[in-house]
């Protein structure tokens, strides 16, 4: 240990060990010196408990404990392999002051309550975790060291772990005694988690309704990728006509309010799975691109969490994100929110890797360009990163050479992001290849003067001015499953505690502490949501605008879960003894309420509210949006296919315009009968009133249609989402001939036979996979509100009329 380091550590050493300020004593007393660094997250979080542990402990415990300042003897009866690296739980030792060796449950093999091949300590990262050996810290050897072939000194390093710097790990060979399952723990666990999630996302793809944004981004994706296809083909032929200004602008004009990366991703899957392979419809093929972005995001979360906090956090964080119903929904729809979340996280990940690798410094710059090129959330990743760099800078000033992120590296990272990002952004967005400045000005002008979109928040409709600053926070609190939310708050607490004056003065946990990364996550989470909370920023669509917040929340909740396991192990010996079995059970229990809630609202994921809001019913009553996005629900499509007579005309309120845009997609993909038309309410046979109270004329619509028989009301969790009114009886009847003629005209002069023929053809060509909806949730024949038990429409009443 260097003198410099000793000087810095001395003041807090005494504080940590109680009365013993001497450095040597501290080293002897704490054979788990790695907890001081890499294992520091295990240090007791309750400051009060740390301050005076002597007071609270029972006398019996005091009598049994060995004297501090002495080397702890490892009792012989403790099985080999449970002492050396199982000393991570300094939390336990600091509180109870009991030698860890007396608690077999804290042994190496099942220290995390998981199978031994998923042990956190065993998977400590060689780069990101502090290496006392490399830092010159001399570890006190126990008097009777127990031989442990699997451990490397105080820690076990898996040779096959895909490390932050694979080039370093490549040279090492795995010890021969390491079982194969442990060697492949990382890829096996990753595959076991991610593949089922991918399959689940694809299976549930069809059930998610069509949003109004789908109609913006899917055509744009098609145009972009078709241009790219033409350009590449042309290049092979030696032609460059697609690169002319007019051709580029023609190809990239659609939806040029947003950059291209997400749409290119959707376009690629559209090209492969729809155009070339014809396996999917247009919408589903484009949406597959978003699922791939989601999978990238989940993989990055898994990898970061595994390498930084250990398997338990990784295994929890990934499903935690999928278990957030709103995010789960966004993983399915062709919008920019999940792609921007993925690229945002990618920059965060790159910056983390850049702490150790020069290559990642450059990559971070390039990836930042991709993040900027996805959506306007991307550029804001810099702000928490700068704050984190300040934190690291301070750490560097205190710890000197032990800091993981040096000042020079920070500058390099900043330069890389500043210099490399824009060229990447420019290259990826051909729309701005010409008239760059003007088009960028228009781009920023559009977003800084974004038109208002209605938001119903606590009973008030906000349009202009936008909703108050707390709206995003309240929406977040109400839409994340409660138990996950509680655990994530614990993670926040531990992360933000790193900013305490004491920590900033001494950095007692050393430079590689897990809490530093936790702080990094917490800062990103806070910024991602706070950006939307600014008064000048539009707030709408529930939690849509701050999706980048949620991956960090998932990691923080994973850390909270880790803390929970540790606490329970400490408080409940039975739990400690049977951790292997109980931790998975605990994990399932944590996810259980949220999962039940999701099942109850499926497939209306945007209607999910947690128990804090009183679930969907409570949220509706306190005035929160029960749905948004002008969703064209798949259930209504199934309803028309099943029940509507031939040549039915349907209408939607309160926002018919959006539905008229989205309907053709269902027809094109063969999911909706071709003879079903949309039209204004006074011409329609059926009218769907979605109960969206943010529309000011919603109340009037309720009055307007209550005299018509209700054909079906779709209730979710006891709350009506939409009501289908039967307008046939009361519609102004045209003379039969005229009506037929007009219908034919509108149906492009298609005869009935032709329509049926086309339907047959479509249904035979594309058989969409059945939705994995439980039977209980599938739409039933309307039992309530059928024409029989509803009052008949009054004769002589005119059809609802449109105001001028």
């Amino acid at each position: 240990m260097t003198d410099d380091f000793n000087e810095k550590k001395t003041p807090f050493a005494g504080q940590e060990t109680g009365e013993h300020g001497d450095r040597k004593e501290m080293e002897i007393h704490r054979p788990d010196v790695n907890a001081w660094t890499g294992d520091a997250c295990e240090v007791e979080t309750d400051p009060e408990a740390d301050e005076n542990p002597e007071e609270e402990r029972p006398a019996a415990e005091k009598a049994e404990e060995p004297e501090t300042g002495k080397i702890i003897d490892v009792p012989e009866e403790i099985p080999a392999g449970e002492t050396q690296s199982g000393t991570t739980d300094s939390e336990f030792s600091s509180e109870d002051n009991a030698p860890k060796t007396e608690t077999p449950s804290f042994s190496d093999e099942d220290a995390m309550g998981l199978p031994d091949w998923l042990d956190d300590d065993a998977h400590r990262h060689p780069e990101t975790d502090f290496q006392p050996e490399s830092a010159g810290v001399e570890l006190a050897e126990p008097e009777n060291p127990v031989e442990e072939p699997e451990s490397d000194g105080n820690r076990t390093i898996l040779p096959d772990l895909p490390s932050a710097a694979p080039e370093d790990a490549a040279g090492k060979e795995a010890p021969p005694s390491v079982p194969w399952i442990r060697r492949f723990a990382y890829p096996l666990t990753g595959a076991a988690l991610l593949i089922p999630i991918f399959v689940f996302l694809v299976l549930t793809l069809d059930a998610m309704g069509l949003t109004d944004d789908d109609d913006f981004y899917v055509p744009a994706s098609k145009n972009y990728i078709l241009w790219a296809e033409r350009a590449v083909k042309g290049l092979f032929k030696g032609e460059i006509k697609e690169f002319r200004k007019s051709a580029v602008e023609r190809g990239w004009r659609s939806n040029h309010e947003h950059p291209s990366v997400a749409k290119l991703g959707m376009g690629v899957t559209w090209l492969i799975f729809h155009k070339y392979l014809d396996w999917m419809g247009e919408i589903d093929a484009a949406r597959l691109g978003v699922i791939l972005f989601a999978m990238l995001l989940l993989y990055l979360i898994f990898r970061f969490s595994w390498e930084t906090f250990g398997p338990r956090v990784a295994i929890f964080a990934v499903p935690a994100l999928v278990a957030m119903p709103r995010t789960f929904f966004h993983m399915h729809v062709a919008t920019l929110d999940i792609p921007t979340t993925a690229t945002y996280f990618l920059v965060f990940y790159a910056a983390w890797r850049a702490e150790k690798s020069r290559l990642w410094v450059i990559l971070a710059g390039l990836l930042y360009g991709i993040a900027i090129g996805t959506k306007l959330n991307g550029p804001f990743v810099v702000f928490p990163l700068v704050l984190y760099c300040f934190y690291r800078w301070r750490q560097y000033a205190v710890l000197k050479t032990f800091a993981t992120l040096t000042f020079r590296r920070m500058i390099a990272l900043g330069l890389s992001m500043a210099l490399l990002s824009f060229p990447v952004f420019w290259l990826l967005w051909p729309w701005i290849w010409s008239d760059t400045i003007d088009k960028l000005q228009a781009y920023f002008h559009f977003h800084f003067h974004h038109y208002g979109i209605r938001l119903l928040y606590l009973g008030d409709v906000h349009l202009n001015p936008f909703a108050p600053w707390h709206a995003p926070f309240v929406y977040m609190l109400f839409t994340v499953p409660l138990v996950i939310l509680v655990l994530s708050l614990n993670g926040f607490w531990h992360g933000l505690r790193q900013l305490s004056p004491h920590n900033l003065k001494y950095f007692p946990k050393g430079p590689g502490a897990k809490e530093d990364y936790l702080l990094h996550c917490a800062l990103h989470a806070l910024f991602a949501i706070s950006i939307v909370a600014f008064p000048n920023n539009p707030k709408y669509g529930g939690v849509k605008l701050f999706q980048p917040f949620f991956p960090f929340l998932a990691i923080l909740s994973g850390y909270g879960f880790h803390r929970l396991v540790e606490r329970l192990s400490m408080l409940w010996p039975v739990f400690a003894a049977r951790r292997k079995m109980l931790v998975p059970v605990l994990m399932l229990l944590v996810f259980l309420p949220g999962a039940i809630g999701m099942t109850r609202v499926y497939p209306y994921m945007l209607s999910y509210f947690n128990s804090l809001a009183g679930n969907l019913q409570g949220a509706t009553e306190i005035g929160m949006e029960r749905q948004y996005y002008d969703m064209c629900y798949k259930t209504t499509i199934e309803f028309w296919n099943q029940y509507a007579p031939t040549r039915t005309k349907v209408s939607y309120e309160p926002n018919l315009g959006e539905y008229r845009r989205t309907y053709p997609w269902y027809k094109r993909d063969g999911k909706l009968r071709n003879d079903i038309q949309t039209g204004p309410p006074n011409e329609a046979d059926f009218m769907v009133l979605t109960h969206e109270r943010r529309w000011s004329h919603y109340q009037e619509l309720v009055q307007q249609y209550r005299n018509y028989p209700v054909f079906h009301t779709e209730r979710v969790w006891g709350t009506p989402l939409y009501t289908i009114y039967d307008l046939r009886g009361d519609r102004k009847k045209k003379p039969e001939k005229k009506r037929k003629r007009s219908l034919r005209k509108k149906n492009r002069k298609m005869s009935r036979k032709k329509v049926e023929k086309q339907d047959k053809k479509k249904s035979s060509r594309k058989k969409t996979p059945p939705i994995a909806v439980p039977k209980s949730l599938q739409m039933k024949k309307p039992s309530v509100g059928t024409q029989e038990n509803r009052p008949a429409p009054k004769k002589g009443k005119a059809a609802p009329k449109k105001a001028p």
Partner: protein
Amino acid sequence: MRNLRYILPGITALAFVYALLTVLWPVPDPVPAESWKAVEKLMNPHRPSGDLVIVHPSWEDGALLHFKKNFLILGRPNTDSYTVYPRIWVVLAHGAPEPGYLDGFHLDFREKVGDLEVLRYVHPDAKHVLFDFFTHIEDGRVTSVRDDDVKECNEFNLMRWWCPTKEWNHVGQRSVSIQKTWQSGIWMHPLSSRITRLEYKNVPMGKRLAGEYALSDKAADLKNIPPVVFRVLINGETVAIYESEAVPGWHAFEIDTRRWENHKATVTFEGTSKKDNMRHFCFLAQTRTDELGIPRVPKRNALPAIEVDPEREETKKRDEKQKRQKDTDDPDKDKDGDDRKNQWKRNLERRLKDHKTRREANKARREKQRESRKKSKPKASPTPSGGRGNKKGGKP
């Protein structure tokens, strides 16, 4: 503090139990129809059809099947439209709490009926109201008049009277965006060169008739569009004429009705405009017992009552006098002064006159044209190309 170690497991356990209980808690059954019917039975004798009914919780939509006539809001209103009602009925189901947003209203009735609880809130100002034209819209009679052409708007639906003239031409309750807040009023969109008339008979009169009128924000923003002329008549006598201004917001008005106090009268509101595009006009009015000059229901963004210009009034009176004199001079005029019966005759005569004069004028014009053609006929020219020249010969 050794107990702190229990915080995380404790809070997590609590959250788990609470979340699990709430997600597994069965959804309450819908309120049975009998309860709704009982509520209707209780309310019907005490309420005009125009009263507002609010049902809590907002997801209990069984009310839609029952309160067919009243304006019904499920849950907290998302606009300020409820503020125009002097009386509001609140129906609570599933143990929902009392609404806390009805500022200014006080509870004057409460009763539990079956599974429901009925509350009635009254605005303190309501005691001065003798007749509210907004809530009694069903009692009105709406016509669209152009000279002799009187079209009855006799189709009542959605608290509005629908006219056979144009699809959007109706008179009744409607929410309009006024100064960026949605507020209710009696919608009376005028038609160009037609008079839309809303007539109430047997209206109990008090000391004054007070109210407000407004154009919607969109309409008020438009400049250089002819105003809506809004006229109020009592027993056929014009008592006030207002012109809408291109200023957004409510404009208050007040009419002295002490002449008719404690009597019943026929009150007519008329609206017209030279052009009918974007004339989103609405108004509110009440007959009241309180003294003149006292502000009515505190209205959001209401402008002060229009001060009547004495000079203008004098000129108006003079005009009316002259008109009356003319009418009395008219031999066809009835003794009662009601000249409507003979109006069609006069109109017919006028039209015939117009027709004659037009025909004569046309004749004269045609003759003139003929003469001019004769004069301009080209005389036989000495050259083959003629006076105007041709392709071959060019100009002479």
